[in-house]
């Protein structure tokens, strides 16, 4: 069977339906579209979720007879208002390509791609230095999706001076800043603006240099039983590789462990000797079988940011009274 460009979409479709062969593959359906249009999107239209959308069929008269298609499928005339298409209270399923054809000639008069979305809500922004004293990074996200493309712009002010935040290739919603000076008394102020076709929003955070220092969890945490003493576990770990200078800025580690049969974590209190990289610590475990192994979290006593402003006792190996049970900053050891 051959078809020429005089065939209407309806004809194209009915030809397909009457054929005894199985439905054509997607590629040939695309080529069918060539007979009614190029299929290229030259116009994109963004509309708000829940809004009413009216589309004009190009320069056609208000009462002209037209046919609208949505993604290639004819639309029901009940949605037409003369030659205009009216979509009420649009939702995400309305997104797609809309085209308008003159009644008899099937000339393509108008084409647009409709994208339904929302304007951005206030973005969530956080900054953190896991590589002190080199610099810090800021990362952000939107609390709920907008369903349409968003553009982000970030500015970092340090007093009167604006700093350059270099965007990371991956992940895309992150950028990093190098410290130009250490031990600054001036706060950093970071503003993130998010813009899309339907609106914009922004958020700002202000912080001191020391308030955002938080190292990554320790690496290669391994717990092994001690050969002659089954009640003891030897734990080894390494400084996080992102921490550039453990010599000048040492990390302090806190160790806790919990046999599976118990609900409470136990803290190892005398870690004062075990600050060096890779050094082992003996810890008691209540029975090796089913022991989950310890979880290490290094909130450094260099800063109080991790503990929300609680002090880190200077010369006693006490732990802050509340110990965060979240996995953030912690890591499960590979125990027995």
């Amino acid at each position, binding site marked *: 069977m051959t078809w020429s460009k005089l065939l209407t979409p309806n004809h194209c479709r009915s030809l397909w339906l009457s054929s005894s062969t199985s439905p054509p593959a997607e590629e040939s359906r695309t080529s069918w579209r060539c007979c009614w249009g190029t299929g290229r999107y030259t116009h994109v239209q963004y509309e708000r979720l829940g809004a009413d959308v009216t589309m004009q069929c190009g320069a056609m008269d208000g009462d002209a007879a037209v046919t609208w298609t949505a993604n290639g499928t004819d639309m029901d005339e009940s949605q037409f208002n003369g030659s205009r298409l009216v979509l009420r209270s649009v939702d995400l399923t309305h997104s797609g390509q809309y085209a308008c054809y003159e009644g008899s000639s099937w000339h393509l008069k108008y084409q647009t791609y409709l994208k339904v979305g929302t304007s951005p809500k206030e973005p969530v922004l956080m900054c953190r230095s896991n590589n002190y*004293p080199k610099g810090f990074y800021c990362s952000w996200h939107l609390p709920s999706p907008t369903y349409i493309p968003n553009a982000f712009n970030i500015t970092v002010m340090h007093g009167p001076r604006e700093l350059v935040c270099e965007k990371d290739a991956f992940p895309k919603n992150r950028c990093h800043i190098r410290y130009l000076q250490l031990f600054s008394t001036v*706060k950093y102020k970071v503003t993130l603006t998010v813009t899309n076709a339907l609106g914009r929003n922004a958020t700002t955070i202000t912080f001191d240099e*020391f308030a955002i220092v938080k190292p990554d969890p320790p690496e290669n945490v391994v717990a092994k039983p001690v050969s002659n003493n089954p009640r003891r576990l030897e734990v080894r770990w390494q400084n996080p590789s992102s921490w550039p200078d453990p010599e000048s800025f040492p990390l302090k580690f806190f160790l806790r462990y919990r046999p599976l049969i118990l609900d409470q974590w136990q803290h190892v209190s005398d870690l004062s000797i075990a600050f060096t990289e890779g050094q082992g610590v003996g810890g008691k475990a209540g029975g090796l079988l089913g022991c989950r192994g310890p979880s290490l979290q290094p909130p450094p006593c260099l800063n109080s940011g991790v503990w929300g*402003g609680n002090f880190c006792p200077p010369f006693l190996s006490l732990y802050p009274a509340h110990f965060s049970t979240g996995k953030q900053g912690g890591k499960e050891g590979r125990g027995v």
Partner: protein
Amino acid sequence: MLYVAGEISGDSWGIFAFLCAALWNLPTVPALNSTDEVGTGQSIQKTYDLTRYLEYQLRTLAGTYLNYLGPPFNEPDFNPPRMTMGEMVPSATVDFELWRSLNDNARLAANYRAYTHLLCYLRGMDGQVAKAELRKNLGHFCTSLQGLVVSIASVMSSLGYPLPSPLGSTDPTWAQGPHATSPHNDFLKKMDDFWLLKELQTWLWRSAKDFNRLKKKVPPAALMLRLEARGF
């Protein structure tokens, strides 16, 4: 930073100047006795511990004091432009490479100078505070801070470094704040207090790292010093 109120007479100023000067001319800290059990390493450790303790104390004190000053000083996002305070107190802010390359003497001297200035200003602040409870806490903090100054001096002395000379002489004018000439500018005075606490907080944050570096580097040298003292 010091606010020259109209009521302070010349005599009071004289006494104050004397106190500040006295702080500079500390009685000689006895050098480490060769029989002294406490090594320089432990002195440094104690100084380090003291900075951490002071950092903790300051957190409570600063919170209370800023509330006493009232808004906007006690607002967490308060981020005013820096004014002339920076000229009066040596700032902790420093380029990283420069900080890392400081020799022990320079490092200790910077700390010593900073805390001596800060202590002096704090004492000036103490006299102005209306609330008794706050004054008591400030006083206690000042005493602890004095302990830190002495501790630093002791470390310097045990290593054979001379104590830095005061930046200004015993002339009280250097001890006055930038707004001494406008005695009735309450807001600017509060600004000075704000920046003083900020500078103190930053110095304590920095000092922990200074002393941490010293901890690692000094003990062998101290040992050598002791051997020299014994004539080896």
